[in-house]
């Protein structure tokens, strides 16, 4: 029972209080760059979950055999292996997604969420907890990404995942799908979550 509690705690922390995008504000490149449509957000989220899960499992399994002097090259090597596998598989099976995510799939290698989890969690904890950590962080990242891209796509193009939701009369604010829109939306979302957090603290 205690084990199950620990497992779910590691799982939930990535979604809530340690959410990489909204709370820790790390790995901000994809949330800013590819959050122009919900499908992009979902695709990127799944790719990151896969890489994070894979690298966490392998690093946690091999943590006793990784000398601390050369741990970073080994972490990066393992992460980039998973990223390349993801890149090839997306190109083979989801070509449309591959086209719209483009360079940002290979760039997952340098996404600091993944290296941060390897360094601060997977290399110090057993496999099962690392799985929970990887899934939780991945889902937290994906949810934030989907939220940002949902706001940007609906305001910027009047659609949600490609379907028109705001009707013909809605005049899309193109700035939302351009680079400045990403900063507006990310900033506003972080502000809202900070406000909610503070309100909760005032009450208690």
């Amino acid at each position, binding site marked *: 029972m205690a084990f199950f509690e620990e497992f779910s705690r590691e799982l939930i922390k990535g979604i809530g209080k340690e959410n990489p995008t909204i709370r820790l504000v790390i790995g901000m490149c994809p949330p800013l760059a590819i959050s122009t449509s919900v499908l992009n957000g979902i695709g990127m989220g799944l790719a990151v979950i896969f890489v994070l899960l894979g690298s966490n499992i392998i690093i946690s399994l091999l943590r006793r055999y990784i000398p601390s002097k050369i741990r970073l*090259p080994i972490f990066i090597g393992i992460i980039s292996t998973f990223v390349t596998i993801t890149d090839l598989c997306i*190109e083979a099976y989801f070509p449309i997604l591959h086209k719209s995510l483009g360079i940002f799939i290979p760039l997952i290698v340098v996404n600091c969420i993944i290296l941060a989890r390897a360094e601060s969690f997977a290399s110090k904890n057993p496999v099962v907890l690392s799985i929970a950590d990887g899934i939780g962080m991945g889902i937290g990242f994906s949810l934030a990404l989907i939220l940002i891209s949902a706001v940007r796509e609906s305001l910027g193009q009047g659609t949600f995942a490609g379907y028109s939701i705001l009707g013909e009369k809605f005049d*899309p604010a*193109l700035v939302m799908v351009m680079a400045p829109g990403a900063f507006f939306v990310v900033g506003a979302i972080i502000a809202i979550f900070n406000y909610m957090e503070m309100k909760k603290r005032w009450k208690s």
Partner: protein
Amino acid sequence: MREFLKLLAILLVFFAGSAITLSYTYTKTKPIIEERKQKKKLEAISEVLPPFDNDPVKEGIVIWDEKHGNVEFYIGKKGKVFTGVAFLGETTGYGGKVTMILGVTPDGKLHGIKIIDHNETIGLGSKITEPSFLRQFNGRGIDSAKWDVKKTGGDFDEISSATISSRAVIKGVREGLELFEKNKGRILTN
């Protein structure tokens, strides 16, 4: 020194493992990726060429041009008669490279054009892929149009707020037609 060798050996083992994994994935996915690329190429060719009944890729030729490098010309024939030639064109838009495929009839007129790849601004420059913009190039020859947007005295409608992207396509089409005129002899005798 001994520690150095030990660390080196560990690194080698890790990266050998990753190399094996990657080469396996590569051999599994490569054929699928290649097959789809070929299929897509043929689809794009049939979209811009007049009807043909041969295999334009097989009967194509590669011509070296000092401005464009090696260009592959895909030749469409119907009943042994040359109906048109398709080739890739490149131009620089607002967000970088714009790749298009052009279909040209033997008299040097554009038969069809399709944008294959671009990085233009979504919602503005990205409208260069729409048929309503691209249709205006059909039937134009190199001498039968002023190759600029209407606003500066040319013949072509521009996409509002996307003059750079519109001009890029116009320039790409013009250069493509020039390339065809220059190498017409070699393409037609093929």
